[in-house]
């Protein structure tokens, strides 16, 4: 394993960037319409619990990555097979975020630029970060992450004068089922995707801080998500909100006098960049551990190329992408995000004493 250390602040900013990721432009709870805030609270609470399970797995298996834990708990061969599936999963998450980024930029900012050009340029920057190591990605996120809440709050407060504060009413007009469906989607995207951090947590310099850091970043990002939802619904209303492809973009168009779309682009570049970097880092380190290759950066380039191709290959258009992520993604993610981690957590519980001794 790479001998680098990240601080709790860096982990906090990495987690925050990862959670913000493409949720800046893709609203996983849009299906619940004006009740999406309830979905966000329910899904956010369950998502935070899930993230705490991941943190506990890491605490119960100190200094071990996901691949080490899988091999130890499931046996060398079955553990390695599940490890390969996780490599695929991390590359897949990265490719979806890359595609979200490409679609957004080519629809909104550079409509005449081919999407592949936008994706390749972004991927080159991300690859440079991945090859530099998790410490560098952590430092960059530490430097850039504060921009995100500032940009969000600038847009939110500036739109106060044209907001209809009753737009989220009536509550639960269509019953509880759409709310619960959207809450489930919100657990798997973005909270469950932080399973990739099981490859990052062993680099934390003070492991005892892990739960607190995870909890703080998840609570702050959930709150920010709810603020963004209320801003969008107050400005756009339920109907426009449910019909918009990129909701924050439509909100920014309402902004009086000036164009604030670049602020959303910047947020997506920072948070999306962090998310893709962490996913590709997790995939590269997991693959190098599985194959016994000492330096993960030897494979990161090839994985990034595959990720670019996969992002273009998967969907023919943005509607196909959104339908798939809305209908299929939550169920496809369940084994990777919930079942396997819960099994690992239960299997790690007998090691509590060993983990306590390691801490001492």
């Amino acid at each position, binding site marked *: 394993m790479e001998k680098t250390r990240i601080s709790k602040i860096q982990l906090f900013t990495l987690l925050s960037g990862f959670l913000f990721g493409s949720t800046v432009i893709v609203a996983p709870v849009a299906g619940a319409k004006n009740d999406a805030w309830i979905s966000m609270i329910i899904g956010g609470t369950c998502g935070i619990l899930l993230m705490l399970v991941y943190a506990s797995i890491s605490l119960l298996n100190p200094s071990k990555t996901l691949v080490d834990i899988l091999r130890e708990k499931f046996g060398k061969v079955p553990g390695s097979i599940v490890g390969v599936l996780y490599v695929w999963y991390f590359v*897949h998450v990265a490719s979806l975020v890359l595609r979200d980024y490409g679609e957004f930029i080519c629809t909104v900012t550079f409509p005449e630029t081919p999407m592949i050009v936008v994706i390749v340029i972004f991927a080159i920057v991300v690859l440079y970060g991945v090859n530099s190591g998790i410490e560098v990605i952590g430092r960059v996120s530490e430097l850039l992450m504060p921009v995100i809440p500032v940009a969000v709050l600038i847009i939110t407060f500036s739109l106060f004068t044209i907001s209809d504060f009753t737009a989220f009413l009536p509550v639960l007009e269509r019953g509880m089922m759409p709310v619960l469906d959207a809450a489930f989607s919100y657990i798997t995207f973005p909270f469950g995707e932080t399973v990739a951090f099981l490859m990052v947590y062993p680099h934390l310099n003070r492991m005892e801080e892990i739960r607190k850091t995870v909890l703080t970043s998840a609570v702050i990002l959930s709150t920010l998500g709810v603020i963004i939802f209320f801003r969008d619904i107050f400005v756009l209303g339920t109907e426009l909100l449910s019909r918009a492809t990129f909701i924050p973009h439509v909100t920014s168009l309402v902004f009086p006098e000036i164009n604030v779309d670049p602020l959303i682009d910047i947020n997506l570049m920072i948070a999306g960049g962090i998310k893709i970097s962490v996913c590709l880092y997790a995939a590269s380190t997991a*693959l190098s551990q599985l194959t016994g*290759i000492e330096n993960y950066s*030897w*494979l990161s380039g*090839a994985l990034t190329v595959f990720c670019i191709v996969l992002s*273009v290959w998967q969907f023919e258009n943005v509607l196909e992408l959104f339908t798939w992520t809305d*209908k299929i993604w939550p*169920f496809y993610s369940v084994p990777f995000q919930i079942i396997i981690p819960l099994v690992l957590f239960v299997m790690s519980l007998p090691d509590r004493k060993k983990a306590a001794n390691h801490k001492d």
Partner: protein
Amino acid sequence: MVLIVLVFALFIVFDMRKFVRIKVPAKVYVLYFAIVTASLVVSLFLASGKRPYSPAKVIEAAIKFIGIEK
């Protein structure tokens, strides 16, 4: 098509220089070329307008087959 092959060739040459300099083990070459070749083949299919059956479609079919999503 030619452009894609050229981009891949450039990328491989860039990485190979590094690999030869630090004398990486043979398994790195095997894995590297397996992943890059798969990417190149899919890219060429996409460039020729024949989109291969994508992983997203396979996953969707599997989930519909299980009966979770209709």
